[in-house]
Each structure stands twice: as structure tokens, then as C-alpha cells.
């Protein structure tokens, strides 16, 4: 009899496991992600493995960056506390699988919005928090000042699993240049190999180049070439199929950008409640019932602005003041000559 006891227990265990799974998937309600997040008490956010200015952890494990701030904004809106975020560092290769498999709920990891990614693989892009373009970095001593000086046989270091790999081919093919692609899995390895002299050029998004340059053994020896060879709109991504969660993330980002437009900062947000401008009053929750549409209270946007700040504050704190890209370029508001333009919150 003891012979079967083992088999019997494992069978019972297996049946029990089966039941728990099935009952849970039947309980899927309108926004499963929002419910789960509120139940867990933290937002699960996928970030990069270390890209200064976008998502980077310090020695104490505190994450900073404009991509990090998107997740913090969602945490502030949904849970009331911008610090209730669990960050998962992901390689370019792992990021989408982590999101579609449900390991994370927001992917905010300098990810380029493209048609095939949006349509094909079960993802939805909710907006753009950084307009970027692919560029090339070379050693100053090489004397190269423009991509037109590239010659046959040039070796280019980059990351695998990125749009960079595809753009690079398009670029070199259109110029008729034979090149050697050297593709690594992690950004740190790309930088190490390029820094060692394995490659003549290092190519990725220009913001990435600017950020990684700070990691080189001698940053002054390298320059980023002026040409931009592609459009890289970077933004947060969510799983397809939960439109409420999608809206929450989209409007958390939009709130940060619109707050800057109306001059609402983390310092003056409370005072803005008495503003004469109804648009401002709506953003700080003093008018309208905007949060109700997501199943949130009315102060959700005020919390974002107070705890995380507006987009301009986030940019200044993470990218400008750290010396990565002091000039906002296209990432300036549309009212100031940039292309940041978000639909109105009303």
C-alpha cells in the first residue's frame, strides 16, 4: 500500500494545482492588472539594466531616470505612493517576454515604438516619453567627423534584439558599405568591447550613446557623430488586452507632460487648486471627475505631480543636470519649439 502512497499524494497535489489555476483565470474581471496591482501594493515595472538618465540604479539600489519616473507616476496614481514600485532590470532580449508573460505590468525601458512590435506580439505602446534617433559614436583620434567617412570593413558594436540592428543594416546597405556587425546581449558588454578597440564605431540611440559615453574609461576620447539615421520614439509599453490599465499608464505620462505645459510643478501643485484656469484645476483634481473613468480617485493626477513632478522636472533632474543631454532638442514642449504634444486631459 505504501507503494502507491507517493503516487497518490503527487496526483492529489497536481489536481489541487490545476484547480487553483483554473479558478483564478476565471476570476479575470475588467482590469485584472489594476486589481492585482492594488492587491499586491506595488507596481511591477521593467527597466533597463543600467542606462544613466533613463533607468539606472545607484549603489543603494535606488532607481532614477525618466523611464523610472513613468512607473513612479503610475504608482502615485494607483497606489498613492510613488515609491511603491518593484523594478525588474531586463535585457533588450528579455523585455517583451517579461511583459507578455505577466512578470511585469509596465515596460518602461527606452523601447522604440514600431508597427510590428505594436501589432504583432501582444503589446500596446501607450505614448512617447523621449524622441530619439540612432547615431554613431567613434573615437576622436580616428579623425572621423561624419558617417560619410565610413569605409568598407568598418566594424560596429551594438546590442542584439533592438531596432538598432535593423537600422544599422538599412543604413550601411543604403550607403553601399560592407560592415562587420558585432552584437552583444548586454549594453555593458558592448561598451567594454568598443572601449577596448574591438569596434570602430558604437551605434545605438543617441541618448544611449550620450549616456554610455559617461561610462567609458575616458569619455573625452569619444564623439557622437552629428547624423541621425532613424526615428526612435521611446515610450512605455503595456500588455495588450487590458485597456483600462493601458489608459492609466498613458494618462499618467500625459499628466506629467501637460503639467509642464501649464506650469504646474511638484512645488506649486497644491496652490494651483485655486487657479482660474479650468484646465489646470482639472489636472490637480479640483474640478471634474477624471479619475473615475479609470476607477481611481480624483487626486490621482495631483499625486503624480506632487510626488514625481512634471516632465520638465523629471528631464532636468535625470538627463540635463547629469550632463547627458543638457539640450532638450525635440523633447521640448510644442509651445517651445519641440514636438512634445499630448491630448488634453478633460
Amino acid at each position, binding site marked *: 500500500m505504501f*507503494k*502507491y502512497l507517493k*503516487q*497518490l499524494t*503527487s*496526483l492529489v497535489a*497536481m489536481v489541487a494545482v*490545476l484547480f487553483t*489555476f483554473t479558478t483564478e*483565470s476565471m476570476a479575470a474581471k475588467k482590469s485584472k492588472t489594476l486589481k492585482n496591482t492594488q492587491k499586491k501594493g506595488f507596481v511591477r515595472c521593467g527597466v533597463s539594466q543600467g542606462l544613466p538618465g533613463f533607468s539606472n540604479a545607484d549603489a543603494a539600489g535606488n532607481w532614477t531616470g525618466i523611464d523610472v519616473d513613468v512607473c513612479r507616476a503610475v504608482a502615485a496614481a494607483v497606489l498613492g505612493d510613488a515609491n511603491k514600485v518593484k523594478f525588474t532590470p531586463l535585457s*533588450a*532580449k528579455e523585455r*517583451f*517576454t517579461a511583459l*507578455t508573460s505577466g512578470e511585469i505590468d509596465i515596460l518602461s525601458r527606452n523601447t522604440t515604438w514600431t508597427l*510590428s*512590435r505594436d501589432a*504583432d*506580439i*501582444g503589446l500596446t505602446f501607450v505614448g512617447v516619453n523621449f524622441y530619439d534617433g540612432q547615431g554613431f559614436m*567613434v*573615437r576622436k*583620434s*580616428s*579623425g*572621423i567627423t561624419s558617417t560619410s*567617412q*565610413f*569605409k568598407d*570593413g*568598418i*566594424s560596429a*558594436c551594438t546590442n*542584439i*534584439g*533592438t531596432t538598432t*540592428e*535593423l537600422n*544599422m*543594416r538599412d543604413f550601411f*546597405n543604403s550607403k553601399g558599405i560592407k*560592415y*562587420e*556587425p*558585432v*552584437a*552583444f*546581449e*548586454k549594453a555593458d*558588454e558592448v561598451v*567594454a*568591447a568598443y572601449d*577596448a*578597440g*574591438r569596434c*570602430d564605431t558604437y551605434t545605438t540611440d543617441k541618448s544611449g550613446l550620450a549616456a554610455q559615453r559617461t561610462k567609458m574609461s575616458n569619455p573625452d576620447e569619444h564623439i557622437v557623430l552629428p547624423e541621425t539615421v532613424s526615428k526612435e520614439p521611446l515610450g512605455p509599453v503595456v*500588455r*495588450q*488586452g487590458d485597456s483600462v490599465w493601458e489608459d492609466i499608464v498613458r494618462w499618467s505620462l500625459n499628466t506629467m507632460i501637460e503639467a509642464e505645459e501649464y506650469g504646474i510643478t511638484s512645488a506649486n501643485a497644491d496652490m494651483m487648486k485655486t487657479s482660474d484656469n479650468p484646465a489646470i484645476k482639472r489636472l490637480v483634481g479640483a474640478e471634474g471627475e477624471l479619475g473615475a473613468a479609470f476607477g481611481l480617485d480624483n487626486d490621482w493626477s495631483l499625486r503624480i505631480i506632487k510626488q514625481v513632478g512634471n516632465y520638465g522636472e523629471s528631464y532636468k533632474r535625470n538627463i540635463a543636470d547629469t550632463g547627458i543631454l543638457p539640450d532638450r532638442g525635440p523633447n521640448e514642449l510644442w509651445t517651445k519649439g519641440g514636438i512634445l504634444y499630448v491630448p488634453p486631459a478633460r
Partner: protein
Amino acid sequence: MNFKLKDIVPQLITVTAVVLVFGFFTYNAQINMENRGIDFGYGFLSQESSFDVQFSLIEYDGSHSYFRAYLVGLLNTILVSVIGIIIATILGVIVGVARLSPNYLINKFAAFYVEFFRNIPLLLQIFFWYFAALRALPLPQDAEAIFGVFFLTIKGLYVPAFIWQNFSVFFYSIVAAIIAIIVIRIHAKRVQENQGKQIPVFFISIGLIFILPLLSFLIGGVGISFEVPVLKQLATTSFIYEGGVSLPPELIALTLSLSLYTATFIAECVRAGIQGVGKGQKEAAASIGLTPNQVLKLVIMPQALRIIIPPTTNQYLNLTKNSSLAAAIAYPDLVLVFAGTALMQTGKAIEIVSITMFTYLTLSISISLLMNWYNKKIAIQEK
């Protein structure tokens, strides 16, 4: 028939459980993929891949299909595994024998090598050979020529390319030599069994394998010339070698680390095998008048191999699977090209991971079958 319920029930339960678990996971994956709007299918394999690969044994660029990219990755994995297995075996046998050497220095050096390399994680060793050793290599313009034609630089090892005339004649001469050697071996064995006379097969074989191809040069019209790599300037401080064959540093670092690591385990297998043959065997063989060479060849090795082969098979399998660590240093193997770039560009995680797993399984099973066949051949023939 002697069926008993208690014999069948546990098996039935196990089978049902396995089927249920698989069914559950497949069903769950289907539901999840449907919910998230992910299509399942292998149609993407024929689509244009639109990414390039650094190093390929077959013609490939981004205009070829994803399937072609898969083949590129697979061949690169096989290449590094085969080279790795050959080097690891040679090195492993030498070190294994050296560990049994009565010479103190050789013995201790071999022991040190084994303990050092097998106790450091392989990934660290790969990083060491790639990043640390790479930095120590000169830039192309500073490289000293080795024998005037080889250039070892940070961008790779540049070797001269062979340019053949009448290569087919040369190729057939080698085939002919191999056939001749096999015929002579069979003949020699028969002569020995019938007349007890020994023919020096080894020296005849060596002679044949050299003389026949040499003849093809002298009278077969085979010619060979070399294309030596030449330095080319790309920019003020940026150079490269053109012409000849270039071996990427990623391939060299990966082969080196894989073989140095695996050789330590093979060395231990070899040592165990030789020590596993009883001392009496050697003494008995010597007492019937066999020379030390014959003792090794006819008595010790056939018995030692029986002990060595099965664990060595494991090491070959390990090496093949460990080659997937290539992704860390940009060597375009199956994992980097197919389960990396292709997966990312298509988002077909389940399809690509399943193909990759199946491929490694097939590779491993092929090696296993080959080694099992060899093991059976050298095993004791029960009569």
C-alpha cells in the same frame, strides 16, 4: 499473460498525470496567447530576416530568411563545438596522462591546471579570455606579423587564404590514401591472424597520407598559392586587414575557454580510466614478452577506454551545450542569432524557443548515439 492490477495502476496514473500536465500547459498557453492577440505559427521562418550576422559559414545577409539565419546560428554552434571537442580531447588526454607521470614537475603542473580551470565558472573564463585578453592584443596597425603572414589583433586573427589549382585532384588523392590505409589494415590483420607476422601498419599509413597528396602536387598539376592579409586604413587611427581569412576574436575566445575548461574534466576521465586498469594486467602483459608500447596499445588502452568513453561523452555534451554562453561575447551562435535577435525581431517566443530546444536536443542525442556506438565497439564482446 500475468497482468496484475497493482502493476498497471501506478503506470496508468503516471501517464494520465503527464498527459494532464502537458495538456494544461498547452491549453493555458493557447488561452493566454489568444487573450493577448499573439498568433502561433512557424510561417515567419520564410520571412526576410533583415538583420546581418557577423560571422557565417554559409552565404547570408539580411535579405535571406529567418530559416537561413537559423542555419547560420546552428552551423556556428556546430563549428565551435567540433573545434572545442577536438582541442579538449587532445589536451585532456595529454594532461590526464601527465597527471600519472612520475616526473614531479609535470605531474604537479597538470594537477594545478586541472584544479585551477575546473573550479572557475565557465562564464567568468569566457569573459576573461574575451575582455581581458582582448584588451591586451594590439590594434591592427601595431600588430607584429607571426611568420610574416599571420596577424593577431584586437579585431581578430588574420591568416592567409589558400588559393588552389585543381583542388579536386588533391582531394581525391587524400581519399585514395585513406582507402589504401583501410585496405592495408584489413590485410595486415589477416596476415597476423594467419601467419603471426606483424606489418608496420602505422608507418605505412603515415607514409601514404603524405606521399599520395605530394604526388598530386608533382604530377597531378595541383598548385597552391597564398593570399596574405594586407593592412588597410579606414580612418586616421582605424585599420583593418583585407584579404586572407579573418577569425573573429569571439570565436577564438570561446573555443579557447570551452576547450580549456572541458579538457580538465576529460583529463580526469582519462586518469581514472588508466588507473582503473589493474596493475596485474600490465605485469602479466610484460611477463609474456610484450614491449612497453604493445602493453599500452594492446592491453592497457583497450581496457582504459571502456572506463573513459562514457564519462567523456558527458563532457562532449556539456561542451556543446555550454557553447550557448557565446551570447555573452557576441559570437553569433544559435542562441545569439536565433533565440536572441530573431526572437526579438519576430516576438515568436514559444516557436523559437521550442525550435532551439529541439535543435540542442537533436545535437546532444546525435553525439550520444555516436559515442554509444563507439563505446559498444570497444566494450567487452560477450561470446
